[in-house]
């Protein structure tokens, strides 16, 4: 009896499996009839992705949609006017590479003129015109629609079209990063498809389900939560893509993504480390190649300078700059970075990821010096009166908590290392792992002693203003760091028309002297790609964007 029941049930399940294809996948097979014909280019690459890109539409990637999966997919479908070159220099007008714009000139210190490439076309065949650029900028500059983009575009006065293919961008002030701001933040959108839709309606429209772009790859279909398939656009005006099909496979767990790569179910993966152990596993596979590239991340212990209970008063322990400097000196940041990333991380001299061109202007980060740390603490009045190993002052022990999100095993391990290192100079560090939203809530409310932060930066150093200036207090500057000298240096560097390097150098030095944080690691992102793909180039600020330039054997 039980045996036949088992057989019957298995048959039912098998049938269920066959039918378990979600209806929506069948509906979104747009253009499948022409699929094989439309992609005469051979080759398929399967890229493992950590999240499903539900909304890869420029100007709509706000709030929860502002994540790398959406950005990566948007970069395949949509093109910018121009992109920073390999040196990632964002200041000045040199070094940028053409995108939708074929060439650009400067009319005067407040005006840039872009001439669009006449060969550029939307995936439905309609040519890209200046109207599309103007339309996209109008949406992007509106803080109601796109607050995330409106901010960096606040010095754009207006964007207008001059004929079919010429765009004029006027600024309210003269500063070095005008070209960067005019090109990096906004991808032009097809006005002929979107102008009739209200901004709030785009997210649920058929356009969002199958976006029409102008980039090297066009949308084919998506199985929600599982895969996104793109086909090469052979008429791409910058060149013919070398790979015919790109399939993004979604797996939220990094273990699952690694397993897919190692078993051959995926061809390419970003951020292979941490954990460092993965390097060995991939290196053992001769068919896989490692491709290091600068990562936009930077991690640091952020010291809260305000009292947790009363934000108007300084923090009883961390308000003292000597204590902060001592903490920085006591940490062996080199060994912490090496233990976590091996050779694939630098210890930054300030809040600078490997993406920022300013990061080496003030030299390297100093080495650990526990003796000096002890001296600084003693000079500030901290003594171990009761011999319990922890320093005290006025009856208060030198005990601090470092909070971090529980999902980050890397930060957890680093915090435990730091705990041990600080114990040796008499500081008691408690590691507090918190559920993600709770961590962020406490962080924003300033309810912490030390926050183990990890920032993901844009290539421009002007982003430092949000977290490290007095004006940022109440916003991203959750620790209450306020140094008028740093503010004036950064502001001057941003608007300077000459080479801003000396100003940035001084700003970095000031920040180092004020020790608002212990900057721990600026990693190198290590990608892994199957060796059958050649000409592999990874863009630091946007990993897969140059995928179309690769070729497959």
């Amino acid at each position, binding site marked *: 009896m039980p045996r036949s029941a088992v057989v019957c049930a298995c048959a039912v399940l098998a049938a269920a499996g066959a039918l378990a294809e979600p209806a929506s996948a069948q509906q979104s097979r747009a253009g499948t009839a022409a699929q094989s014909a439309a992609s005469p280019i051979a080759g398929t690459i399967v890229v493992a992705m950590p999240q499903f890109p539900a909304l890869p539409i420029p100007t709509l990637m706000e709030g929860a949609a502002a994540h790398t999966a959406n950005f990566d997919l948007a970069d395949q479908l949509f093109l910018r006017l121009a992109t920073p070159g390999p040196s990632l220099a964002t200041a000045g007008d040199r070094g940028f590479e053409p995108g939708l714009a074929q060439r650009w000139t400067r009319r005067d210190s407040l005006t840039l003129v872009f001439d669009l490439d006449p060969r550029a076309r939307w995936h439905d065949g309609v040519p890209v015109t200046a109207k599309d650029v103007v339309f996209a900028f109008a949406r992007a500059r509106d803080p109601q629609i796109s607050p995330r983009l409106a901010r960096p575009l606040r010095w754009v006065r207006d964007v207008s079209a001059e004929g079919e293919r010429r765009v004029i961008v006027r600024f309210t002030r003269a500063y070095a990063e005008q070209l960067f701001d005019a090109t990096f933040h906004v991808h032009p959108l097809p006005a002929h498809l979107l102008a009739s839709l209200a901004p709030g309606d785009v997210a649920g429209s058929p356009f969002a389900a199958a976006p029409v772009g102008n980039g090297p790859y066009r949308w084919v279909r998506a199985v929600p939560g599982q895969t996104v398939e793109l086909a090469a656009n052979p008429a791409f005006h910058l060149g013919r893509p070398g790979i015919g099909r790109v399939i993004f496979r979604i797996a939220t767990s990094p273990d699952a993504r690694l397993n897919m790569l190692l078993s051959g179910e995926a061809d390419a993966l970003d951020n292979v480390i941490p954990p460092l152990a993965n390097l060995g596993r991939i290196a053992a596979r001769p068919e896989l190649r490692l491709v290091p590239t600068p990562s936009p991340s930077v991690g640091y212990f952020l010291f809260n300078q305000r009292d947790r209970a009363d934000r108007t008063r300084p923090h009883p322990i961390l308000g003292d700059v000597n204590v902060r400097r001592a903490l920085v000196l006591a940490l062996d940041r080199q060994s912490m970075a090496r233990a976590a990333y091996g050779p694939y991380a630098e210890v930054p001299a300030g809040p600078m990821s490997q993406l920022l061109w300013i990061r080496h202007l003030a030299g390297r980060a100093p080495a650990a010096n526990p003796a000096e740390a002890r001296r600084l603490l003693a000079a500030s009045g901290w003594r171990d009166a009761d011999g319990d190993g922890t320093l005290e002052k006025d009856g208060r022990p030198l005990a601090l908590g470092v909070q971090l999100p529980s999902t980050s095993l890397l930060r957890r391990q680093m915090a435990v290392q730091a705990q041990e290192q600080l114990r040796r100079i008499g500081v008691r560090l*408690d590691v507090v792992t918190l559920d993600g939203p709770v961590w962020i809530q406490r962080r924003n409310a300033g309810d912490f002693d030390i926050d183990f932060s990890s920032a993901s930066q844009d290539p421009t150093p002007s982003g430092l203003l949000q977290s490290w200036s007095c004006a940022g207090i109440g916003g991203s500057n959750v620790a209450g760091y306020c140094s008028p000298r740093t503010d004036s240096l950064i502001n001057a560097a941003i608007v300077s028309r000459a080479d801003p390097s000396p100003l940035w150098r001084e700003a970095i030095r000031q920040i180092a002297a004020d020790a608002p944080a212990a900057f721990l690691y600026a990693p190198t992102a290590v990608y892994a790609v199957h060796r059958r793909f050649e000409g592999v180039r990874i863009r630091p600020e946007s990993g897969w964007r140059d995928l179309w330039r690769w070729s497959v054997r």
Partner: protein
Amino acid sequence: MRCSTRAWARRETAGGAAVRRRLGGVWRRPGGRIGLVLLSAVAAAVLLGPLVLPDPLAQPDILGGANLPPSAAHPFGTDPLSRDVLARVVAGGRVSLLVAGLAVLLASTLGTLVGLVAGYAGGRVDAVLMRLVDGVLALPRIFVVLLLLAAWERVPLAALVLVIGATGWLAPSRLVRAEVLRLRSADFVRAAEALGCGPGRVIFRHLLPNVLGPLVVATTLAVGDVILLEAGLSFLGLGIQPPTPSWGGMILEAKDVMVTAPWSSLFPGLAVMLTVVAANLLGDALQHDDAQA
């Protein structure tokens, strides 16, 4: 006529004597003996080990001493932060066993009480109690945990025990109730009631010994559940905070080197396995004897 246990000589009744008989059977059975010995060994190691083993928190040399395979100096190897795994397994055992033991005790006691009362009383009492169980089961445990622990930055052990116990009594209550339902109309229960035994007597003298079967199974399995639950809570930052070792936390922290340095997760995993097997062997030995020797 008085309600008395002596009147019933059958196996299904006679509360105190039946329980004593079962307990005696534990030592007689080889499985029970092994289980007891194993558990005692684990307890001894956990209590006495820290006296002779190195500091479980020390990180002597992270760059050179991390992820070392087992050797004379480190019988269980070192973990990714160069800490001695043997010392951590033993130290972690204290926390894991304490939490597991207390939480399981709390959960089983509460669950048994509720199940007995609900099953025997029936009617409205049963309905209310069981719908309460349904309601609490329906609540996503993660939110109950988050709320209860939101007040504390560092989770005190008592809070963890309370939380796990508070969510763990539901299953035993339903299991016990099911058995009570089955037995409620059995002859021996009817007879006891006819003799004037009050509900308390019936429940504790007559029903309880006979629901021990599924209860023991659920309790001994719960030991494993709780230890692993602690690992799951660590995943969300709500378990035992670092650097205090716990078996679940160790397995989690060694997840990334599972393939390249398996000893960091293998040994705490074996410790959990040993404890669970021992507890369940003990539980098996508490089962009724087959009439056929």
